[in-house]
């Protein structure tokens, strides 16, 4: 994996980034474990939804 680098799709890279950052933000948030778990899920969904939304908005300008 480390030798020549691995190839991931843009969506997979964004999902990996969103998952890691959501876990970190939820870990540092206040509240009970279930509340922070919900916060992590909400953060992940918002990351993905906003990322895909911005991608669609930029689509007309990509060519």
């Amino acid at each position, binding site marked *: 994996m*480390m030798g020549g680098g691995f190839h991931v799709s843009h969506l997979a890279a964004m999902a990996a980034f969103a998952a*890691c950052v959501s*876990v970190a933000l939820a870990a540092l948030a206040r509240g009970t474990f279930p509340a922070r778990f919900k916060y992590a899920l909400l953060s992940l969904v918002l990351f993905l939804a906003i990322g895909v939304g911005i991608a669609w908005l930029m689509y007309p300008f990509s060519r």
Partner: protein
Amino acid sequence: MASDTPAIQKRPDAIAATALIVAIAGWIVPGLGHLLLGRWGRAVFLFLAVGGLALVGFAMRGELFARESGDPFGALGFFADACSGAFYFLPRVMHWAGPDVSRAAGDYGTRFLAAAGVVNLLGVLDACGIALGRKR
């Protein structure tokens, strides 16, 4: 004769020393600051998040910013990378192909590495806040 301050209350210089130790430990190993404070849950998740970002960033052949970059954005990038502590020095001790930002994945990897440092910086500040009694 009774004192207004409880006997178990820490002295301010001891609290500051604890916060400094926690900050340095949290910078070197992500999550170690929280672990020293007994917050093992936060420590584990923070380590996994920072480690995940850094390892994926290296695997995607992202680039670490040089110390002597000569421009403000490069300096900010170096600061962000250096905040990831032990993960900043990981490429020096393990076999790694080196950066390749000619592909989109390498460019993404560079952002992953910077994000790992920024997330760890948030963790260090959180641990300091707990050590100083400003956070719970």
